[in-house]
Structure formats: structure tokens, C-alpha cells
């Protein structure tokens, strides 16, 4: 695949950016990383493969407050491709950068390729029913790239590069930070789980989740769920919900219990090596995606499975 000359990479923190830097390195001759605050993160960026680091200075600011400075830097340097690591803040910043540059953002790209001078990004549309290829032929191309598109690099020794201090442009509009509190919710990283058990509407009551947890424990899996369980019913944390607007996973083993298998859920687990399903509805779409299925009432068979696994 042909390379382009320069890619700019940025995100909330360099420590969460190493995969993008490494990925950009395979696509471009030069990788420039933009960091905010001070240059302390520069070394980490160089270690991950950055050639150049722009530092936008600032203190006690919302990340969003760096947007005018970024806009200014972009207008001055005219980068061709900007890869931003997907997060809620970066999604907002990406939109503001694109709007200022009168372009669009290719969001949540699942693949990035070059065709002559064009940059082509792939992303999901229609609730996972389709993949769309979007092409940027010229000008600035802003992309949001989530975790998992590129592999993180092997830890490298410290290296050095060029550090450039960019101008800080005072934002003309600002919000006042009143409070910040960490989300005390369980820290679950489904993205790294090798085995995942997902539950859906087939589980009738919140109390019944403990039954499924016993099964998950017996096979050493993380618990996850479909959208209605986390949103609406609030039986499980938002972080555990799989689907278009939730977690996108690639486990080795996905065990769907009482999940009907709507496309919006399945796009989040389609890349699992093995998909297993229990559902009492033989018509349920989940069986079309399953390697192994059991058509039965989960309340009848899950206790039996637990007994057998723990035997």
C-alpha cells in the first residue's frame, strides 16, 4: 500500500495513543503528534514512533479549550490527514475542527487506505447493516479512529525527535468547570476480555442475572448485555452493553443468552471467533450467527450447564 508523507495524530492522552502512532507510522513517512499542556508526554510519543511532536501549551483548561489553537495550527501547517483517537471529547473537537475547515469527519473508521492521492475510510452505517467507504480527495481529512484498528507497538527504547511549541490561542467562548467526579462504576474493559457472556431480554428479572453470572464464572468470562438491559432496564452498567452505540468486541468466545440477535447488537460481536447462543425462540436471529446453539428455556438449561461445568 502506498504511503503518504505526513499524518497528524492526537487524542486525550499520549498513553492511549500508542496504537494510533504505530498505525500512522505504517501509513506515512512522518508522524506528527499533537500534545496538550506541556511537553512531558513527548517522550512517550517518540517512544511509540512519532517523528515530530507539537506541544500546545496551557494549564488548567478543558481539553476542548485547545480547539482554537488546534484550528490555528492546522490552518498554518495544512496537514493532509488528522487521526484522532475516538473518545467523547475528541469527537466534539473533531467536529469543531472539521467545521472550521469546512469539511466532514470520517468517524469511527474501521479501516483506512490510500488510493492515489485520496484517503479512503471505512465506517459502519445503518445500525451495522452496512460498511460505508468515504473518500477525501484533497484538503484536510479528519478521522476518528477507535481502539482496536491498529495494533499497539512493542515497547521501544526512548527515542528523540523534533519538539515544536505551537501557539496557544485563547478561546473566545468558554464554559466554567464546576465539578469533576470520577465514574465509580466498575471498571470493566470488555475490549480485552477473551470470553464474554452477553444477556438480553430473555432474562426476565434483574435477580436472575446472578444465575448467568455463575455460568460466566464457571467458564471464566466477563459479563455483558444487549442495549435494553443497560438502557431502559438499567440492570447492568452502560459499560457492559454491546452494540452500535456501546462496546464493539472481538472476543474469542461470545456466549449469547436470551439475546434475539438484532443487527445493532451483533455488529458488536460479529468478529468473535466462536458465537454460542441459548434462546427459547428457534426463530431468533441469533441462531443465524451462531456456531453452536441450544433452543431451550434458559432457566431450564443454564442451571444444568453450571452443574456440569462445576462438576
Amino acid at each position, binding site marked *: 500500500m502506498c504511503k503518504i508523507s505526513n499524518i497528524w495524530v492526537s487524542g486525550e492522552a499520549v498513553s492511549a495513543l500508542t496504537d494510533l502512532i504505530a498505525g500512522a507510522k505504517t501509513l506515512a513517512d512522518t508522524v506528527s503528534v499533537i500534545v496538550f499542556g506541556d511537553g512531558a508526554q513527548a517522550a512517550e510519543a517518540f517512544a511509540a514512533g512519532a517523528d515530530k511532536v507539537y506541544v500546545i501549551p496551557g494549564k488548567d483548561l478543558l481539553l476542548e479549550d485547545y480547539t482554537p489553537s488546534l484550528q490555528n495550527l492546522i490552518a498554518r501547517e495544512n496537514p493532509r490527514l488528522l487521526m484522532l483517537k475516538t473518545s467523547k471529547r475528541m469527537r466534539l473537537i473533531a467536529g469543531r475542527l472539521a467545521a472550521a475547515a469546512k469539511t466532514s469527519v470520517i468517524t469511527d473508521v474501521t479501516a483506512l487506505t490510500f488510493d492515489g492521492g485520496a484517503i479512503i475510510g471505512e465506517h459502519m452505517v445503518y445500525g451495522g447493516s452496512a460498511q460505508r467507504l468515504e473518500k477525501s480527495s484533497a484538503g484536510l481529512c479528519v478521522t476518528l479512529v477507535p481502539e482496536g484498528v491498529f495494533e499497539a507497538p512493542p515497547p521501544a527504547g526512548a527515542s528523540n525527535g523534533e519538539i515544536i511549541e505551537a501557539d496557544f490561542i485563547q478561546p473566545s467562548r468558554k464554559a466554567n468547570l464546576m465539578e469533576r467526579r470520577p465514574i465509580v462504576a466498575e471498571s470493566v474493559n470488555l475490549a480485552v476480555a477473551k470470553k464474554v457472556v452477553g444477556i438480553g*431480554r430473555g432474562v*426476565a428479572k434483574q435477580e436472575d442475572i446472578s444465575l448467568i453470572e455463575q455460568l460466566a464464572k464457571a467458564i471464566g468470562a466477563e459479563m455483558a448485555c444487549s442495549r435494553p438491559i443497560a438502557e*431502559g432496564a438499567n440492570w447492568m452498567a452502560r459499560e457492559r452493553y454491546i452494540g452500535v452505540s456501546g462496546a464493539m468486541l472481538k472476543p474469542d468466545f461470545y456466549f449469547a443468552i436470551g439475546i434475539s440477535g438484532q443487527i445493532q447488537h451483533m455488529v458488536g460481536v460479529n468478529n468473535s471467533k466462536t458465537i454460542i447462543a441459548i434462546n*427459547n425462540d*428457534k*426463530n431468533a436471529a441469533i441462531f443465524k450467527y451462531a456456531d453452536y446453539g441450544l433452543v431451550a*428455556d434458559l432457566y431450564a438449561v443454564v442451571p444444568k450447564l453450571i452443574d456440569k461445568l462445576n462438576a
Partner: protein
Amino acid sequence: MIDFQKTEEQELLLESLREVYKRGNFDDYFKECDKNHVFPEKAADAMVEAGFAKLGIPEKFGGTDCDFTTLIFVAEEAYALGWPSLCWVNQALQVDDIMAFGSEEQCKKILDLGLKGIKPFTLGFTEPQAGSDNSSMNTKVERKDGKVVINGHKTFNTAANRSPYMLCIAREYKNESPYKDFSMFLLPMNLPGIQIENLDKIGNWMMQTCEVYMKDCEIKESDLVGVAGKGFYQLMKNFEVERLLVCAANVGMARCAYDEAVKYAGVREQFGQTIGTFQLIQEKIVDMKIKIENMQNILYKAAWKKSTGQSIMIDSSLVKRYTGQAAFQVIDDAMQIMGGIGYTNDCRISRLWRDQRVYRIMAGTEEIMVHTAGRALIKEAMKG
């Protein structure tokens, strides 16, 4: 001009109904309520909160004006989604019955209940010796020392255990013609002397049907509804319309069974192919669909006649007899398509099969429908 297109407002209202149903995820809940023989309170509350109890109760009393055809569409759709038989929350017709003849105080009591989706009263009509032959009711009202005293025994009282009142028809024994001798009372169900016994039925487990014994129940003259001696005629006021609402349940329940069975036929495999590829199954599906279409057509036409001021005296009997039988056949065929699974309580069709059967008996048996429509049709023919 025949136009079967629902208005945009009707379509949007049905979309709201489906949304409440979907949000509530009621199917398993109904299964549990059915198993435990309890009323689906939680689901009913959700429907009341979404405004479905208010429909058809006049605006000035806190309801939402709604035409009769729309009430039919809504009831049909609720049952088609799987709402349990006899448990629909809209009481507009009961409210209307009382509004027509009741005192201000009675209207207020009934309105409050109706707006909350609570069935205000059980109908105190049928007695052990007075089923289809309703003129032989002998529950008796006596007036002594300024007191009004009721004695009698009513049966097949839907929701007598839950309704705060009974709309009790009692005989005055003042006029020889029984039809001119009945009076209507709004009888509080918590009176001393009232004893309620649940009947052990084969279906409709979420709504109790009871026997009610009334022994020296003392009420007040102000509990009389309308005019003494006119009770029977007052009862007839909304009779035809109520009958059509019962028919909407028939159509809805048939649709519910049909939808489930047809989907099953499309995926259930036997002998290496889906059973839907067998012509014996296809024939059932086609005949079920014809019956559903016929039921809707005859029901909607009667509703349209009623709303355009035409008499539905004959129509209401035809619709009641036809939809009761056709719905039963559709549900029965649905069960046949499901095979053994259809006969288990896990499958909703078994509930529909048990529940719908009584619609051929209650609110006028299908034989009485022949009696009422038959005579009228001959009379009509002789006119020309």
C-alpha cells in the same frame, strides 16, 4: 365510497400503543400473571399512564374525546400485541352508561375510576336461573323503613373481586312484565352481606369471574341509577356498542395467534424443509387470513354504520356471532400449526385458545345472536 385507510392520527395512536407495549416488555410478565391467576397490574398501570384509559371519556371530565371506531382499533391492536383477554384498561363505555342515567354523585365516582383504568363496576345481570333468559332474574329490591334492601345471587360477574361497584339489576315486583319491573343500582361491593366467590375457569385466569351473593344488603335510594322500573332498557343503551368492543377482542386475539403461528411455519423444519412449504399448512394460513380479513371488514363496517348514525341492531348480532366463531377457528388452527408446543402454557397461543373460547358464550351466546338477528332479518324481508 369505501375507505379503509386509518387516519394519520389513528396510526400514530396505534404506534404509541405499540411503543408502550414494547417499552413494558410485557410478554413474560403476562405469562407469569396468567400462571398465578393475577391481574397484570403493572402493565395496566403503564397503559393508564400513557393515556389509554382516558380515551372516549369526554374532555370536560378529564378524558380525551375519541370516536368509537378509534376505540375499536385501539382495543383490537392491544389484543393483537398480546394483551390479556378481559383486562384492557379502557372503561369509556361503562363511564358512558353511568353518565347517561346516573346522578351527579354517581357520575363523579365512576369517572374517577374510569380515568384510572379501574373497571368501575361488575355487571350484575346474569343469575343462575337467568342466563340467556334474562327476564327471569329474581334478585329482589325491597324498601322498608326508608331503607333499600337487596337480596339475590348473581353469577359470571367479571371482575367482581376488583370492581368497587356492581351495576346491579334487581326486580321491584311491582309490575307483571319483568322488563318494566327492573331497577338499576350502583351497589358498593364492600357492603356487609356481600359474599364473593371466584369461579374456577378453564381460561381468562388474569381476570376473575365470580359469583356474588347479596344478603340483606342495605343501600340508599340515592344508589338507584336512572328511573325505577326502567333498569332493563337503560342497560340496553350501549349494548350494541359494547358488543362490538368484545368483537374487537376477537379480531385482536385471532391476529395475535395468526402472527405467531405463521412466523413459526416459516422456520420450523420437518422432513428437511420448513412446514410452511407444506400445502396443508399453507391452506390453514390462507383460510386463517381470510377469516381475519372478514372479521375486520364486518366489524369495521358495523362501527362505521354506528358512527354515521345507522342502526346496527342486526349487524351487532352478526358481528358477534361471526367473530366469536371465526376467531376461535383461527386460534385453533394456529395451535395446530404449532403442534405440541402450541398446547403448552409456554406458548401464548394456548392462552388465547383457552381465553377466547368464552367469547362465544359471554355478552350474548352465539345462539342468542341467531335468535336476535334471525327474527329481525325475516321481519326486514317481509317489509318489502
